[in-house]
């Protein structure tokens, strides 16, 4: 399957996005204001960074359920290090390192020990979250210097800092995926991992890198989150895996790997973000938001299935006779 290309699924996605925006506008008159819409990227970037990494992982046929837990762990490490006297840039570095290390642990289990990604990341999700709780013993870490808050709450021109951050990341990932050999290998692994190995490529290394990257992105998201909320707690990031996976799948990436792309994920992200934002404005409980996102996920996958099978039938993929 070709990489990122504007096709039928992106058109459908655009329609869904439009529909979502209209629906949210109904829920709250504040939704469609320019102040609100400009703020939308803020809420979406943390999950967005994770979703970008998740896109690559799902493309290879894998999945990472531990991303939310890594956010919590990285946040706690950030807070704990800073409280222990480490200067903030160092604490941030420490959090990022922990994220990458956690991700690489996933990578090691999945790529080199050949564990099924679902069960491996379900287990590490528990391990990382448990570590976060264990280290912090449930407390919150506060009181950071003012400059730290500009990351999460500041502006670049009229736009929140998150906009260039997310956009830049999306561009880099899209380029990586559709134009580089590394990206081609990702699609290949998702389509036929065995053939990719026989063709002489180091599939394990690719997977290892992707999971480590995902861990690093989760840690970055943690830093942004702490900067936005001014607090670091062990339960940060709960439910992020749902939002990220929903964004990716809504965006047209098949859960079994091999087809999909970054820009679809970005559109999916906007849908998820719009739902959350719109509902928050209408004072709707987060648990109910979860319900809506869950429903959106199932709808998205169903639509994907339906259109995916239509596409295959049109191409007339031949099976040996």
């Amino acid at each position, binding site marked *: 399957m070709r990489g990122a290309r504007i096709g039928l699924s992106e058109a459908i996605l655009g329609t869904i996005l439009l529909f979502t925006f209209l629906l949210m506008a109904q829920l709250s008159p504040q939704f469609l204001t320019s102040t609100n819409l400009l703020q939308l990227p803020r809420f979406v970037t943390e999950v967005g960074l994770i979703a970008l990494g998740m896109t690559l992982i799902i493309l290879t046929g894998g999945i990472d359920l531990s991303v939310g837990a890594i956010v919590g762990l990285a946040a706690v490490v950030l807070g704990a290090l800073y409280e222990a006297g480490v200067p903030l840039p160092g604490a941030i570095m420490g959090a990022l390192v922990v994220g990458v290390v956690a991700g690489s642990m996933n990578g090691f289990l999945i790529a080199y020990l050949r564990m099924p990604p679902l069960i491996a990341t379900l287990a590490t999700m528990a391990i990382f979250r448990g570590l976060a709780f264990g280290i912090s013993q449930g407390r919150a870490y506060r009181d950071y210097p003012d400059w730290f808050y500009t990351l999460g709450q500041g502006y670049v021109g009229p736009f929140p800092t998150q906009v260039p951050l997310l956009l830049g990341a999306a561009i880099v990932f899209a380029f990586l995926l559709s134009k580089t050999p590394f990206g081609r290998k990702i699609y*290949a692994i998702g389509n036929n991992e065995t053939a990719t190995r026989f063709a002489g490529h180091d599939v394990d290394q690719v997977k290892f890198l992707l999971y480590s990257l995902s861990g690093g992105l989760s840690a970055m998201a943690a830093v942004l989150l702490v900067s936005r909320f001014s607090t670091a707690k062990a339960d940060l990031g709960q439910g992020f895996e749902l939002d990220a996976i929903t964004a990716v799948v809504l965006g047209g990436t098949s859960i079994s790997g091999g087809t999909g792309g970054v820009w679809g994920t970005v559109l999916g992200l906007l849908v998820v973000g719009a739902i959350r934002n719109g509902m928050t404005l209408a004072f709707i409980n987060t648990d109910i938001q979860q319900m809506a996102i869950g429903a959106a996920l199932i709808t998205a996958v169903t639509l994907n299935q339906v259109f995916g099978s239509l596409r295959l039938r049109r191409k007339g993929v031949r099976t*040996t006779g």
Partner: protein
Amino acid sequence: MTAILRLENIHKSFGGVQALKGVDFELYPREIHAVVGENGAGKSTLIKIISGVYSPDVGKIIFENREVTIENPRIAQALGIATVYQEPNLYPDLSVLENLFSGRFLKRGFLLDWEEMRQRAKEVLSLLAVDLVLQAPLKRLSRAQTQLVQIARALLARARVLILDEATAALSPEETKRLFEILEKLRNQGVGIIYISHRLEEIFRLADRVTVLRDGEVVGRTKVRDISVNRLVQLMVGREIRDLYPRTPRTPGRTLLEVRNLSRRGVFEEITFEVKEGEIVALAGLVGSGRSEVARAIYGLDARDKGQVFLEGQQIPPRPWNALRAGLILLPEDRTRQGGILSFPISWNIGFSIIDYLRNRWWTIDERREHSLAKEMIQLLDVRPPKPELTLGSLSGGNQQKVVLGRCLLVHPKVLILDEPTQGVDVGAKAEIHRLMDRLVGEGMGILLVSSDLPEVLGMADRILVLHRGRLVAHLPRGSSPEDIIKAATGLAEAPHVR
């Protein structure tokens, strides 16, 4: 005597491709009826219609004088038609006993009657003179044993028609002999057997009658004793295959590939040999002797416990990417699962092994160069249809194999390892591939050929290495007889270790 099974005027097409045209077929009780033909001739489609996987577009199926419609495999089984496949579709995690009866459990009222099943199973197995542990999980059995389980299943279902599709592909000569004994016994008991194989020697050994298919039509049907091998091949191919094994005599040049003391516990040990410029070295042996494992270990895809691989004197660390860089590549045995990516276009597949080297200044893939390289390769190998943007999955099996071969050749290897390159490939394409092999070594390449096709080994190789249970037991020259190879392969001739 009336036929058990009769097919009349069967037509079947898939999306515009006519797989079967007006095919008539009949099977009598007490006969082994072989069906032969090149790949794509329609054999597989024919038996899939009989076993209920497909339904004919036009035509009648008459089973014991009754017209029937076999809409799905379940109905075929209910009629008494059993199929034994190369890749058995059974349950690896479940016990042998359960596999024998799955879908047909014997019950006592509402509950499963394991005791009765065990009884019946023992009866059938002793009939087949086979010793199997009923409690063992199926995944622990060998290919040959799994096939026997399939046959036992058919017997338990009181099959009247037994279809075997390339059943001996993974069997040793001993196991094949035993299978044939069982088939003959079954035939004598009144079962009608349809036997499909590419191995013509087997047809002549086993079958009573043979039907030849070509391009979806029946072009011949006779008693086996009334036809010769050459005439049979002629019918299959439609022309005389003059030379299936074209080789030009050459003197080998310098050593390209050197394998020393390659070992992997329990699989193979102390494999040592070389491949020189201009020569084809064959690695022969029975199934389970470790040929493919050795090949994959040399390539670096599988692990090794000890030993080294050298290409042009340089040692290659054990990983496929190192092998590629040094100039060594492996063409895998299974082209759809291991060789190519079916949903990628042909050009992407051909360029895939060297994708890291097809780079622009900006770390992007040079798609134009990839495209032109693909077109060159398509022309060289005569891939049809010659359109680089088509997906690999839309090509026929033989053409897919050519594309995978193209990917390997693009690496410009000095040594090419071919693992069963002509397995399941029709006679015409086989000759093409052999011609290509001869040409490649003529241009200075060295080829290591892993093959279970004895005539191919005898016809193509300059030297023949024979493996037996993971050890190199013989090193035979070109011109050796089939008996020499078989003796070595079965361990009857322990030749002194020669390099």
